[in-house]
């Protein structure tokens, strides 16, 4: 069949391993080995990467074949668990969704990998996520059920559903947090916490809106010191900076003052 033959030829180039382009790329990886050397340093590794191979795949290859002390976090390798956030060529992203060859070409055949900024580095590319996760505790980051829930019979109109947009798809990967570029202390509002609050603020089933806005104001919603525009870079396309602004507008409308 000529039709299918054409399709196969097209795939041939892109998908099949024997036709993969392969290139030697250099990884300049920020190392921090507290037990060996108290100061951080950069170390270079070389990998023959083929197209289709992600940065995370290359890191696995280095760890398994060259240096098993190289430390990083990951789980799903498919862009949904949010575990492998790191800075690739200076910009935070998920390592499992960055194509190694493409990223290297944009940077003269070399890739620099650093841990996310703003958080304590545990070892090499792994950061301490506890302070990030703990910021969610104070701002009512959960749905407060409405009293008329029974009457609603678990319904949600398509319009109410659409209003939520992409904000419920946040994976807490800390990319926005790192790109926004500020040092946080535990209990301060970060962009991902704002996205979470925004998602419940727009949920028609929620009855805790006023309470949540006040809690957000107490945590510094109106005096944010990180870069709202930089916070918009998000692997899920949520635009956390915009959502934070929207929350600020909601607070203004309700007459909530800076605390």
């Amino acid at each position: 069949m000529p039709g299918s033959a054409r399709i196969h030829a097209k795939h041939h180039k892109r998908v099949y391993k024997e036709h993969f382009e392969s290139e030697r790329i250099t990884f300049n990886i920020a190392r921090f080995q507290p037990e060996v050397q108290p100061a951080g340093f950069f170390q270079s590794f070389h990998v023959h990467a083929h197209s289709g191979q992600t940065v995370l795949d290359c890191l696995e290859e280095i760890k398994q074949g060259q240096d098993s002390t190289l430390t990083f976090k990951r789980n799903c390798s498919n862009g949904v668990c949010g575990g492998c956030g790191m800075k690739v060529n200076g910009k935070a992203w998920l390592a499992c969704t960055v194509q190694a060859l493409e990223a290297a070409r944009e940077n003269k055949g070399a890739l620099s990998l650093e841990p996310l900024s703003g958080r304590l580095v545990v070892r090499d590319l792994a950061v301490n996520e506890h302070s990030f996760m703990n910021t969610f505790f104070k701002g009512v980051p959960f749905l407060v059920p409405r009293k008329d829930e029974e009457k609603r019979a678990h319904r949600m109109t398509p319009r109410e559903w659409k209003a939520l947009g992409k904000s419920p798809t946040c994976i807490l990967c800390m990319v926005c947090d790192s790109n926004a570029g500020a040092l946080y202390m535990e209990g301060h509002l970060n962009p991902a916490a704002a996205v979470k609050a925004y998602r419940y603020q727009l949920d028609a089933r929620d009855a805790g809106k006023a309470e949540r806005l006040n809690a957000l104001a107490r945590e510094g919603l109106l005096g944010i010191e990180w870069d709202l525009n930089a916070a918009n870079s998000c692997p899920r396309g949520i635009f956390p900076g915009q959502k934070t602004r929207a929350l600020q507008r909601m607070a203004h409308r309700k007459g909530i003052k800076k605390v």
Partner: protein
Amino acid sequence: MKRHEVLIVGAGLAGQRAALEALRLGAEVAIVSKVMPVRSHSVAAAGGINAALNEKDSWKDHAYDTIYGSDFLADQDAVEVLCREAKRNVLELESLGVVFSRNRDGSIAQRAFGGQRFNRTCYAADRTGHALLHTLYDQLMKFRPVIYAEHYGLELIMEKNACKGLVVYDLASGNIERIYAKAVLLATGGYGRAFSVTSNGHANTGDGLALALHAGLPLEDMEFVQFHPTGIYGKGHLVSEASRGEGAHLLNGKNERFMKRYAMHAMELASRDIVSRAIQTEISNGNGAGPRKDHVFLDLRHLGEKKILERLPEVRRSVLDALGIDVARELVPVIPTAHYSMGGIPTDVRTRVVLNERNTPVKGLYAAGECACLSVHGGNRLGGNSLLETLVFGRMAGKEMASFVKNQTWPAPRAKHENHAQKRVHALLKGRGKCNPYDTRRNIQRLMMRHCGVFRNERGLRALQRRLRACKVESFKWNIGDTSTQFNTALAEALETQNMLDFSFAIVESALARQESRGSHYRTDFPMRNDAIWLKHSLAWLVKGRIEVGYKPVVIRRIKPVERRY
């Protein structure tokens, strides 16, 4: 030394659901997880969750489909609980804030899924697991349970058939600690990573199964490993069954919809074992696609971009990330990929772990989710039933544990409890042999995929057994190359590989013993199902370094076994 009333191992859906229930009932709860809580692999579940919500549907039909799909190996009392409780659990999660996709009238939308005669799979686009897990996590944080994130379970603390806690390895500090508890729940998920082509995350290494096996407990029905028909070629990542539920077709190298030869009526929506076997058969008959003829295609082009963007956005994104292919315009190359373990730690219908054929429960030890075997999935699981299982039996485990711990005394702490775990870790850290643990791991994965995959036979399984033994010998000569006490992931992965090796023996021995083909277990040398001899669950114990296999009967209530056709 630490102590908590209820200790939950694993922070996926089953673990978090159990934690929420136990906390609501007033118990004091701690969670141990080897990754951060929202990183658990439940987050990657895509397709949906089954529940008979529609008036025209009934939980009895759902139960029938489940038992039929299991090739009649499911315990029917457990399936009844699963399907009867489904509606309540799904609606409860909805009112906690899960953003399910909707019909026009605002009710929860349901789509078609493989092996079911009614559209009863509720979904949140194609990220249902993500929606459920994040909502549960938010609700759980209200109670602020103690979470030991990035802690590895090393060994269960057992005393006279009662579980008293867990010895853990803290990745951040390198300390080995004892956590005592009145009740322990194992909710550690599956072991897809024991295979080279898998849809599972890096963390799915079956550690909970190894915990049970090392504590002298059996593992049930380990030969039943589900291969999902549509994994991305060359990667193994999942293309959700939702795509076929929404109408995608499978095409072979000759551009024909080959499923008509294997399941005339259900076509692509036959149960997963049948579709996976069909794909593998096409490939071995030379009908595969590509220069090596080693895969088939999934065709979503006729669905249209609008429907794909609305209902399958994650499928589109993940295929684009992995291969650079837009599913709305091009064919997706797919192969069967190791996806789910039907077998696991045997439990009774109240989620209590049992230790023998007579279903004697272990005091204070529970299991739920993929690591448990109730068995609701029997020989083959239907898509959409695993998320349901985590909610229904996670909730039940939470309730059971909360009432169990009320009149229990605290276990007596003894330093000797951690001796064995200490030795295990020190041996790995001090090992200076010539073998690399990653080579061993890759070997196990390749061997398991080759000899214990969709099709199996005695010769292959025997070869696998021999070569796994060689891997075991290798594992005593490891040099992990990292002696650090801080965040030593090389050590953690070596521990995982040890676990993987031990339960792989259980899989192989159970598969060798079962001389029939049922559900996902297909023996080319015994291609027929044989109810007269094999309508029973296998149990595998680790006794003095060898696997011993025993059996227990299947619970059959109303539905009598018949031949399975789709």
